[in-house]
């Protein structure tokens, strides 16, 4: 019986509830004797030069083995942008010169025998700076905003000026979204052992192959000399997807000391170790006829980028042309250099940020026209992808609208703002559309089968916690035709067949496709062996006539003529086969592949205090076929929770004088806690998609896209007040 599509429990779940799952900072267990600890000293100014580093006290402190600064650090080579995600080139040439570009940049690394000694010695390093005036925020530098035709070329469809001129109603609004941080519960951890033959790196990363290639390039090694392992990850959300300094400095420390070195960034350092979602300003203009049909969409964004790195991180308006059928669309983006770390992806860097303004503006348009917000979206449903002009590979958006609305009770909504109450609370209902590009990466899998009938599937991918271990197991078990208990998954090691990065909602699609190909190849291989094996009841049968069920191979039409995998394997050697998934090329595509969703949310606002609580949330998603409804549901719930934080509580605050982050901890950067989160319902609208292997479109990002704008719109409905500056903290409602 097929296990794909069934809600089986996480295969690694037992390890997690017993504390036995080993995350990077939990390793090594066996020869911990050799392990020493590194602690980074981070810049206290945001711009300037280091004039002196007094390390005498630190060096004299107990247990100190090494102290690395730009004076004695190994020289690094720049890593080209195509090798890594996020900051590349000279930006990660850490500890190479005296320049400081952002507060929190590493300026020294102390290595000592114990964590306590390293931490203490780090506190004794005295650094003096010749400070320069930093650009602290986007607004400060906005007059110098620049275009990037290479990375963020404007998109132009039709004639927007004309579309606006022809419109009966024009909405022209500006929204701002703050810098936000990923904050996986596991901070960035790295352990490196550097010997003459091999560099072994245990690291919390969403892409082991990128860390291998990046370290090899920057230290002038061959990729084969570097092995990167990341078995259990304590979340990532994009923050462990990019190339970042902790792995680089840990490798330096291991090379200089000859010891196995571990560096675990502190929570505070996480505000400047793995990048952030960039602060943005988004001006949106919507033109529409009286009946709500859009005549123009124009979006002009400005986003922050770091002061020392020209490659703009993301074109946040890149997906703006996609959700609605409109003949005239234009998006532009400019960038401002700010003394901050280079921004990196955070759970949908494009749609999750750029559609906040579009979806809020749609709500404003609906209010202006007196049209129901859901109806307005239906009227603007795009029959094909407006951006590429291509037909959809599949599109369940209308069904998401319908099923989500029904489940939520949307038709009951009184359109009048401030019209719904629950005692003293103002009640608001809001909704938004979600879209997310569906893609995958080249991925290889290996499936092996032993004489005990047990099999293993191996892919050099990663499991962020989203369920990769589990879905690999399910798909490979099905493809081979064995019970799921007989299949084991291995991932997170560059010694395994190469997988892609765990980001961009690509993992499930990539891993499932490769695991299926490998499982099917192995099944075919064993069948060929069996039919040629005189000792087998299958001997002489046509391979096409051999079926497999629950590890039992038999001839079509005669279940009694067959035997188990284990029996065949006992007479033969261990068997294995590989499968290689190659994603359909983007160039010359004949269809547009997207996942779709609709968020419906209810908020209750205290009119005296301005506090907003989300009290229920329904999210309908069409992401093709769902491999495991149980892990998928958890992923969607988690995405909605992150959207609640994005809308209501999360903002990285910077002090304007010194450009230092002022709320660098969970005490000041508020991620949602249990009491902030209501019942959340996930509805899966399933679709077969002939253009996507396994019909798997990916969930990681669509899970969170749409949630924040739905909440913004619900707050307007509750209060009559339109907040256009995220997050909606109580002060903005009073």
């Amino acid at each position, binding site marked *: 019986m097929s296990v794909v599509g069934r809600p089986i429990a996480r295969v690694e779940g*037992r390890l997690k509830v017993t504390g036995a799952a080993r995350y990077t900072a939990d390793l090594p267990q066996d020869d911990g004797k050799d392990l020493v600890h590194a602690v980074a*000293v981070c810049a206290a100014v945001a711009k300037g030069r280091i004039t002196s580093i007094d390390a005498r006290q630190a060096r004299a402190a107990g247990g100190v083995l090494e102290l690395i600064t730009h004076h004695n650090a190994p020289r690094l080579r720049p890593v080209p942008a195509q090798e890594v995600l996020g900051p590349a080139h000279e930006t990660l040439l850490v500890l190479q010169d005296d320049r400081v570009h952002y507060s929190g940049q590493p300026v020294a690394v102390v290595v000592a025998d114990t964590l306590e000694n390293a931490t*203490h010695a780090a506190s004794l390093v*005295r650094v003096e700076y010749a400070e320069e005036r930093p650009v602290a925020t986007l607004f400060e530098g906005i007059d110098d905003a620049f275009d990037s035709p290479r990375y963020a070329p404007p998109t132009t469809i039709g004639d927007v000026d004309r579309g606006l001129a022809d419109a009966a109603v024009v909405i022209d609004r500006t929204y701002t979204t703050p810098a936000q941080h990923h904050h996986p519960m596991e901070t960035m951890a790295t352990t490196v052992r550097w010997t003459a033959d091999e560099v072994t790196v245990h690291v919390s990363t969403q892409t082991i192959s990128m860390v291998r290639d990046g370290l090899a390039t920057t230290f002038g090694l061959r990729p084969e000399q570097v092995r990167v392992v990341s078995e259990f990850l304590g979340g990532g959300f994009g923050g462990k997807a990019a190339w970042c300094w902790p792995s680089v400095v840990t490798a330096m420390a291991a090379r200089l000391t000859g010891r196995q070195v571990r560096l675990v960034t502190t*929570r505070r350092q996480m505000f400047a170790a793995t990048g952030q979602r960039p602060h943005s300003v988004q001006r949106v203009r919507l033109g529409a006829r009286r009946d709500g049909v859009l005549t123009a969409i124009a979006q002009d964004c400005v986003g922050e980028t770091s002061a020392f790195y020209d490659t703009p991180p993301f074109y946040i308006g890149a997906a703006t042309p996609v959700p609605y059928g409109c003949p005239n669309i234009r998006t532009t983006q400019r960038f401002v250099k700010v003394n901050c770390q280079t921004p990196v992806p955070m759970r949908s860097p494009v749609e999750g940020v750029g559609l906040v303004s579009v979806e809020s503006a749609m709500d404003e348009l609906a209010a202006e026209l007196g049209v129901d917000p859901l109806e307005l979206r239906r009227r603007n449903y795009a029959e094909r992808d407006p951006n590429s002009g291509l037909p959809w590979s599949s599109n369940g958006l209308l069904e998401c609208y319908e099923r989500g609305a029904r489940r939520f009770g949307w038709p009951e909504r009184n359109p009048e703002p401030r019209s719904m109450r629950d005692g003293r609370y103002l009640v608001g209902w809001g909704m938004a559309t979600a879209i997310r590009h569906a893609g995958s990466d080249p991925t290889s899998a290996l499936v092996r089968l032993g004489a005990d009938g047990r099999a293993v599937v191996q892919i050099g991918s990663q499991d962020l916690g989203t369920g990769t271990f589990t879905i690999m197991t399910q798909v490979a078990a099905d493809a081979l035709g064995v019970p799921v208990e007989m299949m084991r998954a291995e991932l997170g090691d560059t010694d395994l067949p190469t997988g892609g990065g765990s980001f961009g909602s690509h993992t499930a699609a990539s891993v499932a496709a490769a695991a299926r190909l490998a499982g099917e190849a192995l099944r075919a291989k064993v069948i060929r062996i069996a039919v040629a094996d005189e000792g087998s009841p299958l001997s002489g049968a046509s391979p096409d006539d051999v079926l497999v069920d629950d590890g039992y191979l038999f001839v079509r039409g005669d279940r009694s003529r067959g035997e188990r995998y284990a029996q065949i394997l006992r007479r033969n050697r261990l068997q294995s086969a590989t499968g290689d998934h190659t994603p359909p090329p983007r160039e010359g595509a004949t269809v547009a592949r997207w996942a779709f969703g609709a968020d419906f949310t209810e908020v209750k606002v205290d009119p005296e205090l301005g506090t907003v609580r989300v009290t229920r949330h329904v999210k309908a998603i069409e992401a093709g076929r769902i491999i495991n409804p149980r892990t998928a549901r*958890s992923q969607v719930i988690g995405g909605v929770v992150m959207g609640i934080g994005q809308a209501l509580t999360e903002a990285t605050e910077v002090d304007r004088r010194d450009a230092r982050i002022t709320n660098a901890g969970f005490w000041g950067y508020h*991620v949602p*806690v*249990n009491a902030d989160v209501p019942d959340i319902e996930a509805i899966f609208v399933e679709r077969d998609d002939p253009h996507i292997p396994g019909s798997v479109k990916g969930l990681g990002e669509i899970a969170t896209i749409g949630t924040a704008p739905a909440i913004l719109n619900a707050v307007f409905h509750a209060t009559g007040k339109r907040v256009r500056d995220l997050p909606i903290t109580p002060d903005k409602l009073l």
Partner: protein
Amino acid sequence: MESSGRAAGGPSRRQVLGRGALIGAATVGAGLAPQAGAARAATAPPVREETLAAEPVEISLRVNGRERTLSVEPRTTLLDALRERLGLTGTKKGCDQGACGACTVLVDGRRVNSCLTLAVMQRDAEITTIEGLARGDELHPVQRAFLECDAFQCGYCTSGQIMSAVALIEEGHAGSPEEVREWMSGNICRCGAYPNIVAAVRQAAGGGAR
């Protein structure tokens, strides 16, 4: 989102610091503000490094029913002692600042953020970590409920969530979903498994999944 030990009322790291000022200086300097330590030299507080080097002391801790002898420095937190000295890495460090609950363990049955207490303070206490919950192969009911309700994704906060849940049920705070939400709010889950965590706690407490 403060500490999950709100019901605790036991000694905090700060109180201990008051009693032992010399060790205290080391802990504050080392543990809380490594970044500030590197601040502009002119404004940095004077550090009396002579007083900071505290010699390791031999202590014994009762962890999961076993007496364990180990050598720790007076400034070593219970969390680091468990993880780095005793190899009990099931207890996690999420912030080292008492703000996330990932490090929650039971000290004499009360939930405590182990990053906020020093190992030397717990010599007479009975400490339970995630590794001490199951009896052999048989999971504790809270562990089983977390598995069955899929109350986690990455699992990094899970040890702390489970330890908190065990104590919370004992405290009698699992009476309703609302109560569980409130009393579990010292344990952050960035994967956002909260609704499933509430269901798991209710199930383990015998209150039904919802």
